């Protein structure tokens, strides 16, 4: 057991709090009062067996005597020391061997330092959340690349004007015009970016909505929950207990709803039957539904619950929207940019399916983006009446996203993520100007 140099002090504090005489305590544990006096003044170390006896006599946990309430404080200070060790290797190392002396002599400053370290750790988690967002948010990515393009143009053009000797007047005029145009572009992009950042409402985790909490949790689990696949019932509360991604009550509620439906789906189409259908029919949802005798909606959700690579299954994504077009589920497919906020591209087959319930739609789409990519999509909309014939009819549309076949077809559709970041200038579905195209045509970095 780790022994603090302040153990004796704590023994003395506890004894005096109990109004027990030193001689009485010494007698109770079988040592002389003089020896106990040395212990209480931290001048003799206490053996484990004697500490247990003292703790028993003082009706306290031995840990409370050996580590005291300062345990967390020591941990915080050790973390601060470790963090300091990651910095300048030439700076003096904290005197870890005198940490107890420090706490004993300056408890207030120690608490300030440990509190500061705790705050730093908390902020680091928030920064990690932001970094994750930066790496995944299509709007931020597009904006940053727009900035990078404008800066590259400005830097090269300005350098030419400064460095090139005897530059012809027409070229000088042309490059000056470039600088003006790129400056405006930079200004517009920065304005849009600031406006976008102003709309963000961050939680402590860096995840801004319950839906994102749910998706972050599922992503961390590889989109596959073993618990729902096992026969028999399981406790949803045990599954979501202590999950760091599910930081809000609303996020946990969504997780419970997800688990309920995932369990029902697993009962309707158990993993073994799904894999058999997948092996026989490939990843075409309609064929799997016919093979397994289950509704298409179940197949969509079950496919999205399989980890990539199952039985040769390619990487896949799934989006689900309700009748309002709001995306209610997003399993991302690499390269298929899903909007973080607001509505998606109206040309997605998902929305065509929403307008044509019960009609399956198969389409290859060409997704605009930093790296244009093609995908095979299967979309389907299923109306349901959860409150019976007298209640509202609710629609739910699904779109499964798979890698596209190598062979191109004339019927492929040009789509984007959302209008704000879509470079397709002449798009019949455009509902607002793009920060990437305004007056300048398609761009990439």
């Amino acid at each position, binding site marked *: 057991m780790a022994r603090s140099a302040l153990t004796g002090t704590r023994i003395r504090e506890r004894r005096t709090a109990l109004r027990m005489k030193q001689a009485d305590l010494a007698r109770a544990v079988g040592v002389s009062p003089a020896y106990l006096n040395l212990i209480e003044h931290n001048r003799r170390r206490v053996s484990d067996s004697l500490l247990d006896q003292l703790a028993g006599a003082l009706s306290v946990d031995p840990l409370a005597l050996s580590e005291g309430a300062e345990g967390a404080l020591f941990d915080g200070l050790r973390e601060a020391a470790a963090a300091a060790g990651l910095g300048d290797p030439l700076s003096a190392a904290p005197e870890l061997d005198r940490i107890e002396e420090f706490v004993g002599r300056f408890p207030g400053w120690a608490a300030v330092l440990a509190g500061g370290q705790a705050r730093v750790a908390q902020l680091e988690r928030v920064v990690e959340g932001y970094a994750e967002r930066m790496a995944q948010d299509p709007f931020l990515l597009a904006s940053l690349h727009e900035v*990078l393009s404008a*800066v*590259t*143009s400005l830097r*090269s053009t300005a350098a*030419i004007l400064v460095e090139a000797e005897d530059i012809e007047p027409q070229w000088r005029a042309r490059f000056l015009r470039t600088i003006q145009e790129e400056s405006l572009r930079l200004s517009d992009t920065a304005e849009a970016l600031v406006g976008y950042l102003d709309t963000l409402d961050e939680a402590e985790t860096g995840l801004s909505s319950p839906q994102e909490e749910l998706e972050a949790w599922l992503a961390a689990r590889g989109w596959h929950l073993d618990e729902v696949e096992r026969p028999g019932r399981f406790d949803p509360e045990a599954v979501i207990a202590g999950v760091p991604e599910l930081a809000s009550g609303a996020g946990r509620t969504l997780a419970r709803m997800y688990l309920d439906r995932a369990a029902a789906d697993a009962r309707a189409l158990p993993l073994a039957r799904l894999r058999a259908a997948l092996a026989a029919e490939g990843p075409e949802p309609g064929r799997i539904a016919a093979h397994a005798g289950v509704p298409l909606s179940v197949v969509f959700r079950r496919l999205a619950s399989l980890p990539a690579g199952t039985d040769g299954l390619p990487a896949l994504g799934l989006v689900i929207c309700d009748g309002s077009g709001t995306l209610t589920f997003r399993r991302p497919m690499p390269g298929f940019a899903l909007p973080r906020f607001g509505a998606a591209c109206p040309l997605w087959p998902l929305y065509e399916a929403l307008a044509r319930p019960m009609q399956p739609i198969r389409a290859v789409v060409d997704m605009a983006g930093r790296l244009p990519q093609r995908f095979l999509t299967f979309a389907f909309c299923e109306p349901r009446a959860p409150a019976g014939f007298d209640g509202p009819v609710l629609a739910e549309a699904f779109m499964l996203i798979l890698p596209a076949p190598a062979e191109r077809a004339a019927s492929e559709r040009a789509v984007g993520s959302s209008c704000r970041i879509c470079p397709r200038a002449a798009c019949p579905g455009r509902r607002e100007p793009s920060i990437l195209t305004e007056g300048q045509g398609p761009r990439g970095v």
Partner: protein
Amino acid sequence: MSGRHVLLIEDEPHIAEAIRFILSRAGWQVSLQHDGLTAMAAIAAAPPDVVILDLMLPGRSGLEILSDLRADARFAALPVLMLTARGQQRDRDAAARAGASAFLSKPFANADVLAAVRALADGEPA
């Protein structure tokens, strides 16, 4: 050195214009493609000494074009200078795997473009 041919495949018109100006002044013959879809045909029609290839292009990405080039025996050794975004290590790794000869991060110094193209044309590491 004078008269050697660089094909620049870049969809950003102002960046393309600046690179063309810099290289032309240094004696290079520069032709330009703005679209990934037409790039391969342009290379086949008039094989350049060096290709400057942007990663992000409309139609077909720079990575796809690079992969096609490396799969074609005629262009397997063609020097390709890849333009990537600064900080996008993932893009750079992908381009390295696809067979890029050298990289230049945006934003770049004009002198670095010139030095990289010269080195590649002379068969030196850029």
